[in-house]
């Protein structure tokens, strides 16, 4: 069969789009890599509903959305299914699941593949015991697990505070937050406006910060030059504050410098992207419906620019309404009418974003690690080697990949691509736009030769929600 709409990703954007599209009478399939709906923000929300440490928005809003998604009849939901190739012209989605590959056909494709945490390449970040803050949160959500011993969250962004609260509630006793960024950011952020419209979100954030204080979180501000040290695993985290060096014994270091759109697939499709100089990331160029530079492909959610789960869900609905319009279900005027609620919801959800983007603006250091820092974790290529390659004449990340194998490992450049480009721009004195980005290719995720060879249309599990 040919679906009206294929949605890639079952996070807030994908779930909301699926619900809306089904309500509009479209035939819908939703593919997702994970075994259960929720995306990363509501990961395992159904299983973790009993955990008091995760009380609040995660359990309430996330649980409600997942339940609503499950309740819709007629969505062909395919969990544990990975997209490895997409031909937007033919509407052909090549997927791998359960040891075999198959093709799914759709008239329109919505990529709701979400965000990833920004890689934070500091010296020693490959040591066991160093992981992303989001990873620790996933462990809490999926296994109810927390780190032991001296735990340090280092970086900046709303997730640092949310995670701190969740870990403290979950019984972590020795927790320190090393906040990067500078004091000047706050004044700049105030000028961004949106504080009144975004007051609900702001209040939630302030409540989190109050709770960390009440629970005795140790916070160190204006931290820079972070390093992780240890032999075989992290033992010490070092940083500078003002003109002084500091060190702290550390068993688990959780790094976070915000989240960035996951552009692996949109890049592989060759869609237009813009460099976001404030948030230091690429984002696909979208109109207000999420339409991309390819007529058959839309993007919704954080994959199109970071906005948080409420904006993502609203964006998913808008993309579904636009899909119905483009498939001839109703005209542009009806599209506007139907979109009113979702537009309003998204506007409210995004109101605080300019404030947050300025307050938590990543420092230029995230794209300029020290020479001894490993940038490509797969092939173990350092920033120094990349700067050398740029001096040899490599004008972009694709050439550095050819020279050094940076970006050639199994992560396919997801971790190093933007940092490599940043190092080239720095060394050659050019802009990120002129350096460009890695061009990923299918398979979008590694798959076995046997899976590729083994084409079985019946092999893809389909749970009709």
């Amino acid at each position, binding site marked *: 069969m040919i679906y009206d709409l294929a949605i890639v990703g079952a996070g807030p954007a994908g779930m909301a789009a699926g619900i809306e599209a089904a309500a509009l009478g479209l035939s819908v399939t939703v593919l997702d890599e994970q075994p259960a709906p929720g995306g990363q923000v509501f990961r395992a929300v159904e299983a973790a509903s009993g955990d008091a440490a995760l009380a609040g928005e995660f359990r309430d809003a996330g649980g409600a959305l997942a339940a609503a998604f499950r309740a819709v009849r007629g969505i062909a939901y395919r969990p544990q299914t990975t997209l490895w190739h997409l031909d937007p012209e033919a509407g052909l989605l090549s997927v791998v699941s359960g040891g075999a590959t198959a093709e799914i056909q759709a008239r329109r494709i919505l990529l709701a593949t979400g965000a990833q945490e920004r890689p934070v390449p500091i010296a020693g970040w490959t040591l066991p015991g160093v992981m992303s803050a989001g990873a620790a949160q996933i462990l809490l959500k999926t296994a109810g697990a927390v780190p032991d011993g001296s735990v340090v969250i280092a970086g900046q962004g709303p997730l640092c505070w949310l995670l701190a609260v969740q870990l403290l509630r979950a019984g972590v006793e020795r927790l320190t937050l090393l906040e990067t960024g500078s004091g000047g950011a706050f004044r700049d952020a105030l000028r961004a406006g949106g504080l009144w419209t975004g007051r609900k979100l702001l209040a939630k954030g302030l409540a989190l910060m109050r709770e960390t204080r009440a629970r005795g979180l140790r916070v160190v501000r204006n931290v820079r030059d972070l390093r992780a040290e240890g032999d075989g695993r992290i033992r010490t985290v070092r940083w500078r504050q003002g003109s002084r060096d500091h060190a702290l014994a550390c068993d688990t270091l959780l790094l976070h410098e915000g989240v960035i759109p996951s552009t692996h697939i949109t890049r592989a499709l060759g869609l237009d992207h813009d460099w976001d100089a404030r948030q230091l990331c690429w984002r696909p160029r979208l109109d207000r419906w999420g339409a991309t530079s390819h007529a058959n492909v839309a993007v919704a959610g954080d994959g199109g620019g970071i906005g948080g789960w409420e904006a993502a869900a609203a964006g998913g609905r808008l993309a579904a309404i636009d899909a119905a319009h483009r498939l001839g279900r109703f005209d542009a005027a009806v599209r506007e009418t139907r979109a009113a609620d979702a537009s309003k919801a998204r506007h409210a959800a995004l109101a605080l974003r300019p404030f947050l983007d300025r307050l938590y603006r990543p420092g230029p250091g995230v794209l300029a690690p020290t020479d001894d820092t490993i940038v490509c974790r797969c092939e173990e290529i350092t920033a120094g080697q990349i700067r050398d390659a740029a001096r040899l004449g*490599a004008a972009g990340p*694709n*050439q550095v990949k*050819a020279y050094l194998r940076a970006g*050639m490992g199994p992560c396919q450049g997801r971790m190093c691509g933007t940092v490599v480009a940043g190092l080239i721009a720095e060394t050659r004195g050019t802009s990120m736009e002129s350096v460009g980005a890695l061009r990923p290719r*299918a398979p979008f995720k*590694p798959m076995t030769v046997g899976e*590729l*060879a083994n084409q079985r249309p019946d092999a893809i599990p389909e749970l009709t929600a």
Partner: protein
Amino acid sequence: MNAIGHATRDAIVIGGGLVGAAIAYGLQRQGLSTVMLDEGDVAHRASRGNFGLVWVQSKGLGAPHYQHWTHASARAWPELAADLLEATGIGVGLHQPGGLHFCFSDDEMAQRDALMGQLRREAGNAGYEYRMITAAELHDMVPGLGPQVVGASWTPYDGHASPLHLLRALHAAFQGAGGLYRPNALVTAIKALPGDFAVDLGADTVRAPRLVLASGLGNADLAPLVGLSAPLRPERGQILVTERARQVLALPTHVVRQTEEGSLLLGDSKEDLGFDTLTQTPAIMRAIARRAVQTFPWIAELNIVRAWAALRVMSPDGKPIYDASERFPGAYIANCHSGVTLAGAHASLLAPMIAAGALAPDLSPFSARRFHVQKTA
């Protein structure tokens, strides 16, 4: 940069891929002050999509000059690899243990034997050693062969190397020897006079008495500007690359080779397998995977971490084009789809000819004039 860019050099090479870099390195080594002009980061890079074989067998049937040239390049390779290692410290991973071409039926074996025999006859005094090897004997040479492999042809001349390390080593050695590499240098115009070429790069101009066009498919447009022709068409080829595995394949083969890093490269060779590489990508990738699993069933459990599609630079008869301009002496053209195999010849044989001012007579069959002759015949 600009001050140097404006200066007159002894030679300009347009193209910074494997062909251009090998020639530029060869020219610089001959003592010619050379500038190599390259495109940007996302140009059509046949060099970055090369399978990495240094391959002699099955090349040049009915064209002894091509067989000789390929063979000569394979012989020049060890010295090139050693020179590059000494000059740059970059090992290019050259191994020439001989290579295997598998056959999947008795008929294929017989046809292959006939083809190899014909190549041997055409080799004349240069010689062409090969053997047809049965499946039973193959099991001692490569592990875990699939039951459908009936046998293989083998020559001692074949080998493989890392195209990417080669490209970086050539770039580094060229610059180390004093050559000027200019990426993001898109050629906007060429003003040609005999022995005097001005290449316009938009912002500035470079001049030299010698000009070598080695820009792959780009040569089709550039060649007429210097009184030459390059009838070329792109042909898409695809390669699948697995994760690193411990060394298991001692010999390169025409469908699978293991790199020094441990990755297995699975390829489709147009001339060898006859895939239609223009049909839809997943289907081609699936066909490559199936052929690899058919040859070596154990490959099935390895993960594919990346895949390349690159455009081969094909002339109408699939053989290289080497030409010197009669109208504008000093202008040369070089095109081929075997940038790795022929790197030895380009650096060590072709570059010295260009430096000396004339292509050797045994390269005359490679002139693009052969296509004009066919048209009028």
